């Protein structure tokens, strides 16, 4: 990126080549139409330039075949663009299983990241190369947007609910990230650097925790006890509330007969407004925690609940199916 006039951003994630191919396709299609129309206009200008002051043009009113052609051909092309774009987008909106989950919290005007082991960073993000990364995005105030041009990914960070984004870095290096949704006075300086590292370097960097960081799983476990969650959510499934062992990523059968996937948004909602989705076979007893937990506390609790994933699913855990066992 050191040249004075760059015209092409670096490609550093799995999405970059996909987005760029799409871009190339659209540029080619657009160039074709632009050149064709411009050429037609210039040709007509030269050829049919008015000769005498009182000349008039040929009274041609239209041609149905031509009209149909230039309705149908662009339509087919447009559907091609839509279809291809849709494939990339659907892939982007559905994170694969087994991602490395990192929390990013946006606030005016900084980014706070938290690695799975609790290591925190500000306006920096360290990720290992070649691994599927999922960012769980939350905002403490207004709408922000996390944007990494070299990865060709961005996602709005909306207060009041989680958005997620995922990508797989493919090249080590340092890349800009920006806030891309206008968020107030210092919007333009609310950015930083993503550092893509070799997995071994990443592991070393992770362990170099400053000591002030608290592992969110441990913090979450503590909260789980403090807020008395553990009195009902017994791990063997005999409590008044469903066991949370292995719940994350699995399918939950609800009292109204529907099924939901226990993702981050579900866990968040179930903590804040438990009555929204009641697990089949249980009473709506749990108090809501809306307004009583900070974003970071919610994240810690979620991290703890996720850490229970490796625990066996209790046989009596009504309504819960382990991940992969649809």
């Amino acid at each position, binding site marked *: 990126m050191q040249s004075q006039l760059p015209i092409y951003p670096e490609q550093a994630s799995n999405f970059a080549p996909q987005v760029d191919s799409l871009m190339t396709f659209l540029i080619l299609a657009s160039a074709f139409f632009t050149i064709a129309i411009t050429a037609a206009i210039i040709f007509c200008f030269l050829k049919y330039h008015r000769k005498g002051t009182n000349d*008039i*043009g040929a009274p041609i009113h239209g041609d149905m075949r031509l009209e149909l052609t230039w309705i149908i051909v662009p339509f087919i092309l447009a559907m091609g663009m839509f279809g291809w774009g849709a494939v990339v987008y659907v892939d982007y909106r559905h994170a694969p299983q087994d991602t490395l989950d990192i929390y990013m919290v946006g606030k*005016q005007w900084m980014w706070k990241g938290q690695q799975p082991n609790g290591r925190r960073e500000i306006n920096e993000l360290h990720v290992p190369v070649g691994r599927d990364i999922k960012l769980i995005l939350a905002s403490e105030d207004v709408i922000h947007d996390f944007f990494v041009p070299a990865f060709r990914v961005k996602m709005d960070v909306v207060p009041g609910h989680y958005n997620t984004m995922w990508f797989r870095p493919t090249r080590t290096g340092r890349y800009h990230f920006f806030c891309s949704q206008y968020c107030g006075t210092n919007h333009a300086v609310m950015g930083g650097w993503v550092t893509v590292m070799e997995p071994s370097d990443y592991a070393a960097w992770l362990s170099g925790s400053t000591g002030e960081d608290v592992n969110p799983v441990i913090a979450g476990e503590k909260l789980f006890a403090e807020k008395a969650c553990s009195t009902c959510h017994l791990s063997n499934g005999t409590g008044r509330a469903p066991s949370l062992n292995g719940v994350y990523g699995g399918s939950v059968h609800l009292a109204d007969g529907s099924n939901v996937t226990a993702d981050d948004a579900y866990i968040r909602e179930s903590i804040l407004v438990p009555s929204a989705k009641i697990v089949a076979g249980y009473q709506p007893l749990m108090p809501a925690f809306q307004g009583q937990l900070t974003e970071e506390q919610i994240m810690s609790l979620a991290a703890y609940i996720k850490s229970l994933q490796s625990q066996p699913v209790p046989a009596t855990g009504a309504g819960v199916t382990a991940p992969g066992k649809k």
Partner: protein
Amino acid sequence: MSTTPPKSPGHQMPEEHYLNATYGIRSWLLTTDHKRIAWLYLMGVTFFFSVGGIFAGMIRVHLLTPTGFLVTPETYNKLFTMHGVAMVFFFLIPSIPAVLGNFLLPLMIGAKDVAFPKLNLLSWYVYITGGCFVLYSFATGGLDTGWTFYTPLSSVYSNSAVAPAVIGIFINGFSSILTGLNFVVTIHTMRAPGMTWFRLPLFVWAQYATSIIFILGTPVIAITLLLAGLERIFHLGFFNPALGGDPILFQHLFWFYSHPAVYIMILPAMGVVSEIIPTFARKPIFGYTFIAASSIAIAVIGFFVWAHHMFLTGESTYAALAFSLLSYLVAIPSAVKVFNWTATLYKGSISYDTPMLYALGFIGLFLIGGLTGLFLACLGLDIHIHDTYFVIAHFHYIMVGGAIMGYLGGLHFWWPKITGKLYPEFLARVAAVTLFIGFNLTFGPQFILGFLGMPRRYHNYPPEFQVLNVLSTAGASILAIGYLLPIAYFTWSVRYGRAAGPNPWPATGLEWTTASPPPTENFDVTPVVDWEPYDYKNRPDLGLAAPVAPLAPAHGDD
């Protein structure tokens, strides 16, 4: 030049016309004459265009260096917000409909005035009242929310004068509604004998389509901004997540109007181009019904696409797929128009007069603007280019390259009718070419900036983006000259221009059959239309040579 249209030097201004029928400031401020109201709007929109333009100039100067050297971040945010608000709500939306539309609509359909002349005047006062609120907001602390007013930034976190601005835009909305209502009723009930629906000029069709959006879209932005304003003033929670509201709902409501609003800006410009091209190619427009129908199609389908502004807000994947698909559908009628305009040139008798230069400039710029719209509607690509300078470049190609080129083209085309005077042709051509070059230099580089990843609304930027930003600023200075020139020579021509005569080009529309400038009553006798639109062949009254008759079969015309 040999191609200039016949302008016999002997034309005289008519003795009495709408401009000199009555005198005094009262006769203007209390007028119900649609032609004078058009002048009032012309003053209003020119003022707001200048205000918005000054802000735009400051933005571009500020961005000359990566750290930005002109203003503080806070001021910069206010500049782009006020630029957007002034340009979108107070220039682009009323420009063509309220200036050219007001002047031309009754003339084009052979009516003495619009259906509700008093409402027409009221709508101007409503516009000015809304404008005053917004100017008050600009003057007392400014506005730094972005013209999109996204909550909760606008309703809770901003420290600027949001409330008066929101109220101003709310009020201004009723001006749009009244104009749209007036136009639809006028087109339905005031047509002269013989003026059937399919003899209407395409500009009228475009105004009709625009009015549909005015009528059915504007009330939604009005209520939305009202709610956002109430939320700010009384600390309510409709869209504030901290109080349980939903900021995404605001975006849905906002874009339900604000996306169709883009078509409010571009449809009338398309109408203008559809008038100019057949006139200067001296032949019927190619595919009249397709161009007319595509205007209506754009207005209707345009209401189904709004959430393509929200692909990355966390809207559901299914909704995103639907909105992307629908967005591609709205591209088809736009494409149909471009193809038909181009086909109209075929076997024409084309001249290079200023309005034609603007019309062709419009096609070129709209083509790029429209095609880059396909990039943004493309779900996969939008992930990368959403909220970057690519978007800025795209919508400026549509709004400035499209709408303003159309507006200026229309002003040049009808200036002889509006004032009865001719503007200096050579200077006007220079201005048109300057604008085209300046525009491309300003906004072309921004496509690349966007693809490189420069987010919008940034008061500073990484140094690698500087070259392109400097190019853009250089283009903006050329663009500024291109805008100042017409303001200067139009003003000059009102006093010193040569008399134009009733039909200087000559063109086929009904508005050219009356004097220039027209009398207050528009027509001395109610006209009866017995010709098809854009028909040069059967119009001996235009004084043009008919092609060798009977037509030689070798021509192969239909």
